[in-house]
């Protein structure tokens, strides 16, 4: 196999010295991590490397020599470098050399063992692959090459292929801590050798985050203890809480905040990313909410909104009355059964009358309520949208009631019709065996059954029409609520931090690597540049999407149509927790 030497781009301008890194025999690749400069004492270098090996669990060793000829060719340096192979024995021994003013390098890899002629070394073909050490150190491969539970022990052997290079560089951070201003025994050259960079703000934030996290965590635990109080578990309060989407949203946000401000540090990168995503999502939510708040409270919009609310509800009720009058006449030219029509129509009209009176009763308090609800926007835009969805549900409660009445009536009719149809054919439903069996009926049973069947069949169009109209209205309301919930879900689950990272620092989220062939010259070793191939935006969203609380329809189109046909009630907002209980 061709020997691959992974060389950091930052060391290409370094002075001559020893190459320090890790040798991966399975892929025949040498990952160079740093260059040790003259003067050095070999025993101190060996001691330093043993320390690094113990701390980082990476098999760091001296791989060869690096020669950077700045002035005229120095022959004595060449001989000196060759003599070093006797002191630091390594199979194979790399010798990289760069001439002054030349972009082409020369490289030799000699092996003493396993060569065909004993006493003479065998040379391997070498390929030099340049890599940016800082980017490779900071990037994360997707999918991760090493699972988190394999981190202990010599886990560096677990990574296969090019992931081994990433893993080696990432685990050798202790090697990069010493820079050229240190007074240590060994002088190294790597990406941080010009001095470790740090930001004062970041350090201050890290120092301050400890007490702040503790304080906020205790506050949040207090809030959750209060909400878990027995007072809130008295019926019918839990029933109401489960129906309101605002409570779900608040609970979700509380869980997220508890996770963000928990005093424990995140163990692995995916937990860190999740925390960061949640944090950014909450901040964006609050920012959008405050924008909405400032917009609402300016220029007297609250009064406009409150003044518009009651007439809108009146208008909706008036339209419903017109609709019912239309149904009570001859809707679309269909002839209804007069008596049933009048009964149903008057029943529903009375309901609307009750509803209008209720709205008018509430009208003096509407402005105060809207003002207080508007304040909730400071908790976040998602909370305001959930409240809007709940208000729509409350204002269209009469449509929901009509839908339930119409659906129950229609369902009863369909059940009756199907049972009497079986009687008409001389069959009956066997409850024990759960199938249709033949049955001999008496004459009077048949007579009454047929009469009832006829009555129900002729009353079917009227009931079906009322059911159809109210189901359509209910579906319209559900669609509007569904769109609002979709928007809330989007804000909740979009991983904004990960997307921002992909936009600004694409090398942090790596899907793989890509190679570029650098200028070539015949007879010289092949030179390649290894760059990081960033993850695509779709994969980023898919990998880092935050878990939603699952407020989406749980049935497919087929079962929905079936339920509509048989008049069963549709509950679109079945929560996931109900399903698991």
């Amino acid at each position, binding site marked *: *196999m*061709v020997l*691959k030497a992974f060389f950091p781009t930052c060391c290409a301008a370094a002075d001559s010295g020893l190459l320090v890194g890790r040798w991966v025999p399975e*892929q025949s690749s040498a990952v160079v991590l740093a260059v040790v400069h003259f003067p050095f004492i070999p025993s101190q270098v060996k001691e330093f490397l043993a320390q690094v090996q113990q701390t980082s669990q990476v098999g760091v060793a001296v791989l060869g020599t690096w020669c950077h000829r700045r002035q005229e060719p120095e022959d004595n340096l060449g001989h000196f470098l060759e003599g070093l192979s006797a002191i630091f024995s390594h199979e194979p021994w790399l010798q990289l050399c760069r001439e002054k003013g030349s972009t082409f390098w020369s490289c030799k890899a000699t092996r003493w063992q396993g060569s065909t002629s004993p006493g003479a070394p065998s040379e391997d073909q070498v390929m030099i692959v340049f890599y940016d050490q800082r980017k490779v150190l900071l990037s994360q491969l997707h999918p991760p090459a090493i699972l988190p539970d394999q981190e202990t022990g010599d886990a560096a052997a677990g990574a296969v*292929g090019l992931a081994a290079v990433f893993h080696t560089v990432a685990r050798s951070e202790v090697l990069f801590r010493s820079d050229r201003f240190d007074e240590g025994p060994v002088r190294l050259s790597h990406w941080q050798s010009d001095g470790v960079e740090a930001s004062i703000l970041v350090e201050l934030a890290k120092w301050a985050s400890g007490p702040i996290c503790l304080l906020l965590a205790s506050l949040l635990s207090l809030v959750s203890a209060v909400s878990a109080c027995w007072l809130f578990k008295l019926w019918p309060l839990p029933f109401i809480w489960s129906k309101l989407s605002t409570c779900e949203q608040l609970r979700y946000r509380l869980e997220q905040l508890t996770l963000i401000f928990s005093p424990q540090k995140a163990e692995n990168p995916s937990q860190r990313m999740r925390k960061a995503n949640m944090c950014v999502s909450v901040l964006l939510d609050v920012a959008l909410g405050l924008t909405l708040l400032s917009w609402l409270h300016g220029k007297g919009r609250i009064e406009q909104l409150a003044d518009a609310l009651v007439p809108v509800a009146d208008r909706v009720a008036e339209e419903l009355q017109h609709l019912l009058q239309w149904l009570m006449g001859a809707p679309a030219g269909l002839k209804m059964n007069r008596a049933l029509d009048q009964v149903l129509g008057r029943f529903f009209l009375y309901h609307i009358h009750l509803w209008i009176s209720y709205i008018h009763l509430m009208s003096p308090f509407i402005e105060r309520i809207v003002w207080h609800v508007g304040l909730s926007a400071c908790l976040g835009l998602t909370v305001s949208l959930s409240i809007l969805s709940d208000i729509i549900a409350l204002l269209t409660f009469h449509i929901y009631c009509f839908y339930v009445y119409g659906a129950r009536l229609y369902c009863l009719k369909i059940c009756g019709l199907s049972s009497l149809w079986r009687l008409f054919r001389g069959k009956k439903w066997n409850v024990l065996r759960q199938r249709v069996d033949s049955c001999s009926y008496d004459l009077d049973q048949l007579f009454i059954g047929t009469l009832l069947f006829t009555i129900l069949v002729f009353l079917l169009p009227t009931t079906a029409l009322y059911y159809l109209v109210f189901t359509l209205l209910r579906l319209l309301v559900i669609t509007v609520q569904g769109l609002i919930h979709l928007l809330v879900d989007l804000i909740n689950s979009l991983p904004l931090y990960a997307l921002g990272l992909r936009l600004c620092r694409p090398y942090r989220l790596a899907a793989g690597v*890509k*190679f570029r*062939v650098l200028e070539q010259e015949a007879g010289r070793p*092949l030179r*390649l540049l290894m760059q990081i191939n960033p993850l695509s935006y779709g994969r980023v969203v898919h990998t880092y999407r935050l878990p939603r609380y699952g407020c989406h329809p749980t049935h497919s189109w087929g079962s929905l149509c079936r339920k509509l046909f048989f008049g069963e009630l549709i509950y679109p907002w079945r929560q996931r927790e109900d399903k698991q209980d």
Partner: protein
Amino acid sequence: MENEQSFSDICGGRLALQRRYYSPSCREFCLSSPRLSLRSLTVVTSTVWLAAYGLFTVCENSVVLSAAIFITLLGLLGYLHFVKIDQETLLIIDSLGIQMTSSYASGKESTTFIEMDKVKDVIINEAIYMQKVIYYLCILLKDPVEPHEISQVVPVFQSAKPRLDCLIEVYRSCQEILAHQKAPSTSPQAHQKAPSTSPSIQKASIVSRGK
């Protein structure tokens, strides 16, 4: 060493294959499609604008015209950035892997790199594409669990779709490099592909999905 040759694709269009031999262990094949022609662009734009103008004379709303301009611009940008592939490159490096790059007309490049450990072989396969039966070059990937099983077939030059003569050239060069990888290994491989004068063409048992 560079070499340029002209071939044709399955529809009869002109393709240019550029071969670069960087070293005995590294070769690159670059297939360039013809660029976006001014004629087709003019035809499409005029059609859209004539239709928009016709709609404008019917409904007397100038929003239709601005919408048509907007749609044309966005459509052109989207086409150049997401659809039109100008050049496809295959870079094969011995003992490192195979890299496929597609360059779009807007300059965007999308790269995929497959490590040599995962590559089982490079073959020419047959497929049914619309009403034709075409040949395409593909890379077979090993199954991580079963080393003798194939887990995935990755087609190469999907947008250029060159004909068999071009594929044979690329196939021969790839096999020369893959032979280095297989020669020193002691375990016998299931399919030994020595570079031969007539390439072994495997009949496809799968129906191609088109693109």
